[in-house]
């Protein structure tokens, strides 16, 4: 084979270009930490990665939805707990008021406290998250019950709207409770209790029964809210686990295996340097250098 100078130069150029391209792509992997940097790096994997990024974005969104729902459920629980205490106190007062030995003045005093309880109950029903009344259904811009006078509360102002939270793919749950269902019986009972006490007669047994039914109703609502909080917790755990596993999968797909990427880069670098050294040696000499 006849070897000419131009072959040497051309070969040196193409070897150097090849080595440098390989070094560059190895360096890109190391510096970006990703093995997928553009669609052509591995079209099938990039395709899956786009899909998985979408899934991951959804999962993170579900986590945000769950947090949002949790804060609402938490506020509802606080309000219901306080309302439960109020109705409990009303129950004690009712039993006290049913005692025939009390005089009218003492009953009036009790009635004054019940009036305070009624207003406090309306205020509990007006619990807000941000600017939204949570017991008003979709009418979050209006308090569910308004205090119309001392111990007097108006009719329910909200609607029966059901707020749904998306807590997972194809998994939704109801968040809110209507103030109508939860607080109305208690408020009615409290109003009746005031009427009974103001009448100067001992509190009727039916009123006491009404109060304990309202208490049961509130306890049940609290149980429901507690169950929802648990479900949200569970959902958060399971979605969180999905986020972790999907992130790991995505990382497996996208991220470069650092030790092997660095080894690869060092190997490319060595090859490149060797090519440079050899090229420099070969290109320096020809017969001309030895003719004197």
């Amino acid at each position, binding site marked *: *084979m*006849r*070897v*000419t*100078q*131009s*072959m040497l130069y*051309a*070969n040196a150029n*193409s070897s150097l270009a090849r080595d440098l391209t390989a070094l560059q792509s190895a360096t890109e992997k190391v510096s970006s930490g*990703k093995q*997928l940097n*553009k*669609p*052509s*790096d*591995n*079209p*099938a994997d*990039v*395709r*899956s*990665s*786009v*899909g998985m*990024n*979408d899934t991951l*974005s*959804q999962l*993170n*969104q579900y986590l*945000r*939805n769950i947090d*949002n*729902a949790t804060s609402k459920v938490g506020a509802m629980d606080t309000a219901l707990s306080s309302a439960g205490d109020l109705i409990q106190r009303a129950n004690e007062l009712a039993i006290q008021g049913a005692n025939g030995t009390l005089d009218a003045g003492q009953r009036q005093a009790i009635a004054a406290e019940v009036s305070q309880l009624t207003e406090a109950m309306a205020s509990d029903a007006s619990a807000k998250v*941000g*600017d*939204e009344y949570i017991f*008003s*259904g*979709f*009418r*979050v*811009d209006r308090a569910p019950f308004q205090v119309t006078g001392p111990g007097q509360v108006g009719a329910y102002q909200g*609607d029966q*709207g059901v*707020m*749904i*939270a*998306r807590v997972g*793919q*194809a998994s939704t749950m109801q968040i*809110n409770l209507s103030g109508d269902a939860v607080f109305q019986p208690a408020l009615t009972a409290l109003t009746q209790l005031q009427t009974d006490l103001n009448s100067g007669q001992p509190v009727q047994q039916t009123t006491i029964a009404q109060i304990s039914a309202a208490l049961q109703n509130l306890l049940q609502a609290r149980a429901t809210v507690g169950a929802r909080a648990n479900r949200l917790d569970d959902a958060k755990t399971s979605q969180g686990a999905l986020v972790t596993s999907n992130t790991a999968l995505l990382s497996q797909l*996208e991220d470069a295996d650092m030790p092997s990427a660095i080894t690869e880069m060092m190997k490319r670098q060595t090859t490149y340097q060797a090519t440079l050294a050899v090229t420099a040696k070969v290109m320096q000499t*020809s*017969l*001309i250098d030895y*003719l004197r």
Partner: protein
Amino acid sequence: MSSPFFGLDIGASALRAAQQMLDTAAHNVANANTPGYSRQRVTVVEAPPYTVPTFNRSGLPGQIGSGVTVQAITSARDNFLNLQVQAQASLKGEWDTRQQELAKVESIFPEPSTSGLGSVISKYWSAWQDVASDPTSTAARTALTEQAASLSMEVNRDSTQLGMIATGIDSQVSSQVTTVNDLAKQIASLNGQIQRVTITGNQPNDLIDQRQQLLEQLSAIVPANVLSQPDGTLGVYIGGTDLVTNVYARQMVAAKDSSGHITPTWADGSAVSLPSGQMKALIDVRDGDVAGYRTPLDALAKGIADSTNTLHQAGVDANGNAGVPLFTYLSGNAAATLAVNPAVAADPRLVAASGAPNSPGDGSVAGLIADLQNARSYSVGVAGTNVVGGMSLMTNTTARVTTISADTAVAQVYTFSSTAPNTLTLTGADGSTQTVNLADMTAGATQAVNFDQLGVKLSVTAGAAGKAGADLITDFTTPGHNTLVATSLYTQPQTTSDFYAGLVGKIGTASSQAQEMSSNQQLVVDQLTNRVAEVSGVSLDEEATDMIRFQHAYQAAARVITTMDEMLNTLINVTGLVGRG
């Protein structure tokens, strides 16, 4: 007996030959790095021997050597190799260009990333979820309109960038047409010079090298076939049409085609057939790949906009009014013109998140729109175009969940029938039916024929004469035309993300194939170039030894002349001086 001056002539011929050989070595060294240069060699032969005229053979030799003659200067060239180099140069030009252009396309879709269109789409749907969980929050509504705006901008940008690649290709094609014309003229002019040298019996070595070099440049752009003529000229053919014949060059014209793109044609208007080369790659990328990526991008933009708008318009905004379209776009150019309705962008209260008036806490419609993220769209098409007389049925992509079938792609056969004048009935594979009324159409008008419940949307375009609704019914229900088979065109249902991932995958595959082919082709060309260099390249070591060889020959020839001179000096000045003291 030969003349005493005979030896001087022999010496002179040797001097001339040695000098010629040294000159050629100098020429070789001078052109060692000239692209396309083939090393030259001096062919020397013995000069015709001198026969001593005599009647009877004396003791003298019959023929006397008379020195050396330069017969020709030839160049080392392998024509078969040159043809191979040309053919491979066309392929290399094609794949290199394809790889470069597709790399530009790829850079528009930098996936996987947290800022590409894929993540913008995910964020858009997420923003709807935030509105659904907190419909009274102005922040969530504003975030949504911002996200919708960045979705629009991203889709606009991608579409515009694809358009810019197509425009860039147009200007490259037109400058390549100029280059081809220039090269053709230069080759034709060299043909003329070569012809003149050849008919005098000489070797136009350097001119042939130059022509070969031009042919290789030409081959990279357009695939050139060559045909050698006895007079030394070369015919050059592009896709069967002669570009250069003898000293005449045909001209190529950069013409605008019906879509406004630059396409090469011959000066007489006939099409240029391009089996390979850079120009073919440019046209392929522009009309095949780039156009093929713009269509799904349009479908994606349209799918997101239409499906959002449909639900949004069914919703109620924070003012208690019915929703307005969230997105606007110009049909036929959806990706480039997608925009957020300026009214909604200006007032986030116009985001229709609720299902009823006076329900500020109701985010049910926002929730439904957010659910579109996982909705699967069906792409339904018609087997064959123009299957219905006088009309074209177009493929339509809709982003809505239908009841055609579960997630499996199966052949669906739909049958058209008519139950009343102007009423067209479509019967689905499961026997479910839906009817629509077909309106009369003026010339060139288009109307949508939507069998929404069956998931089939068709667009019907009237011909130049227009069409009455009743006639359209006849066209649809004519035997042989009345079955809509959506087999091959019925694609796997996909979400917006699947759809986009598919597009990215397609771009990645095309680009990675081009990269691979381009580097393979580079190896082939490198190998061939090496073989050409092996045959035709100048070796400086070889030339150095030759120079020493020829220098010695020259010195020896000069010494011969000196010796002859001394002999003649002896003969003329010294001979016959006997006895003169």
